[in-house]
């Protein structure tokens, strides 16, 4: 073998250089990601309030968390938001992709238009939708000005409805991205498969439902993963659109955590809620990573 006959210093450089190059970023990740996760974990077992302290209280913060009505509102909201946002963005994105896949004119322009919201930050999206949905400024006022005095759309300020405004803005922002992913997948389907199905007598909806969408499984799963983690860590959209209000009716776990840890001086409680989010994200991501890594090793 040629490896054994190489000079010793060559082997040394080859051995150490990659490690040396990777070391700084590795160190940074270790400290600022895993280090702080561990620190956060530690804080969640303390009685920290405005500032961190190390008075151990065991699981008391978790007990307080689970007894907090506001936390359960946030969890409930996350459930509503997650299901509707993922389902809605996926459905709208797939429908747009299928429509765009019909070889229509101006496809390039339309694709850009639909993809454009992705270029905006959630803050901008949230602010813009905040104006549009604000009863005194946006849609409702417009309809009143046009003479439809009975029109009312007050979801933004209605505690029972406010979470749905976040869903609407989230879907608007993300469905273009879902569309782009699916469109790329649809373009990979051989044209003659569709022709064969037409000769077999299948209608267009049936062709999509039975043949094309099942072939989109990998795209479907990647999209689901991306949307799920956007949903769980959603923070900026809520802050810009409703600020968690009215009251705390549209809180999500991320805004709950921020409120507790940084504005209400309940750092221990905030840390405990952050740990709960970490567990949730891991429950989604770890099985996915596991299956992906296993597949790439087998290929």
């Amino acid at each position: 073998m040629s490896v054994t006959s190489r000079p010793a210093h060559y082997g040394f450089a080859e051995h150490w250089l990659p490690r040396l190059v990777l070391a700084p970023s590795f160190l940074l990740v270790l400290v600022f990601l895993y280090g702080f996760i561990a620190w956060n974990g530690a804080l969640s077992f303390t009685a920290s309030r405005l500032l961190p302290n190390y008075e151990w209280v065991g699981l008391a913060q978790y007990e307080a968390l689970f007894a907090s009505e506001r936390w359960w509102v946030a969890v409930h909201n996350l459930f509503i938001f997650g299901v509707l946002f993922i389902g809605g963005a996926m459905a709208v994105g797939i429908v747009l992709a299928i429509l765009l896949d019909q070889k229509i004119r101006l496809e390039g322009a339309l694709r850009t238009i639909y993809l454009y919201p992705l270029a905006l930050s959630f803050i901008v999206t949230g602010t813009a939708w905040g104006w549009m949905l604000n009863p005194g400024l946006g849609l409702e006022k417009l309809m009143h000005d046009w003479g439809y005095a009975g029109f009312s759309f007050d979801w933004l300020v209605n505690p029972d409805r406010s979470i749905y405004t976040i869903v609407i803005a989230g879907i608007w922002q993300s469905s273009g991205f879902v569309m782009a992913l699916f469109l790329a997948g649809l373009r990979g389907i051989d044209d003659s498969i569709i022709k064969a199905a037409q000769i077999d007598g299948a209608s267009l909806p049936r062709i999509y439902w039975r043949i094309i969408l099942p072939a989109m499984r990998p795209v479907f799963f990647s999209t689901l993963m991306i949307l799920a983690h956007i949903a769980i860590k959603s923070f900026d959209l809520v802050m810009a659109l409703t600020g968690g209000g009215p009251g705390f009716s549209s809180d999500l776990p991320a805004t709950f955590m921020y409120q507790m840890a940084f504005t209400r001086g309940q750092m221990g409680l905030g840390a405990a809620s952050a740990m709960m989010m970490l567990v949730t994200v891991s429950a989604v991501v770890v099985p996915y990573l596991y299956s992906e890594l296993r597949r790439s090793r087998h290929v």
Partner: protein
Amino acid sequence: MGALAIKNVTKRFGDTHILKGIDIHVDSGEFLILVGPSGCGKSTLMNIIAGLESPSGGEVHIADRIVNDVAPKDRDIAMVFQSYALYPTMNVRQNIAFGLETRGVPKKEQDEVIARVAKMLQMDHLLDRKPGQLSGGQRQRVAMGRALARNPKLFLFDEPLSNLDAKLRVEMRTEIKQLHHRLKTTIVYVTHDQIEAMTLGDKIAVMKDGVIQQFGSPQQIYDTPANLFVAGFIGSPSMNFIPAHLASEGGVIGVSLQSGDAACFAPLLDSQRYAAYVGKRVIVGVRPEQWDLAADGGGLACKINLTEPTGPDTIVFTQINGIEVQARLHPRDARSPGSVLHLRPDMSKAVLFDPETEIRIG
């Protein structure tokens, strides 16, 4: 009875004319080959027959019924695609059953059909596999099975063998031919392989640039090609096109051939039909196998430039009237390069073309 009739069909994509007035008539049970170089519009014509694309003009009749406005599924056809077009997420059984299911065939009947098809194509052991787990040849078989699942009036094959390796291609060719003998269903078969065209077809339509150059039986097309393109396209090695002057010597019309210092006059059979061309330049088409060794020392003394033994024959390369000519000889008659052979063309089979119009004369 007419199984398929195509009447003056044209197709435009925007301003480009892809098909320029196609006329084809196929009788029931016939095997029609559409052959032509890449991009000449074969698949487009096939898609028009299948109803996947609508013609810009003209009529398509299937089983004596005009089908221009009939959907593909109601045309009673089955099609095999070049890329096989198997449904990727379904296993072989589901692939075959899909069309039956769409047509509302009861489950029990579906199973019978699948069993029949699997037996016919010897693929029982593949039924539970997905297309991704099959080899090219097996996929091809499944694609055929899917077409055979119904008993259509018309089979359409769009280059079904072009993705297979040479050996498998020959095997499948034979199988398709046997299948046709057994089923006696009308088949339209697209290929750009002239050997497939000759071996499979009852009728051949040679296409180029959206125009049918010639439509006839394989033998007609081989013996009396309509123009230079057809003559050069069909047959391998291809026909020799020798430029020559048509001359009259003592009342006999013929052409003079020259190779190096040697020259000879080759009289034509039935030569009066060429009378109008005497004194003009023509192109003489002589196929490689239409050269014989002139044992008597007559014919044309040709110097051999190169030989290519193929096993049963040896192809001999020489120079006649300034162009390279190939002659297919028995290996026993061939000589090594550099030596001289006396060759004589079989002028009874030779065909003449007008160099201007490239159309066969006489």
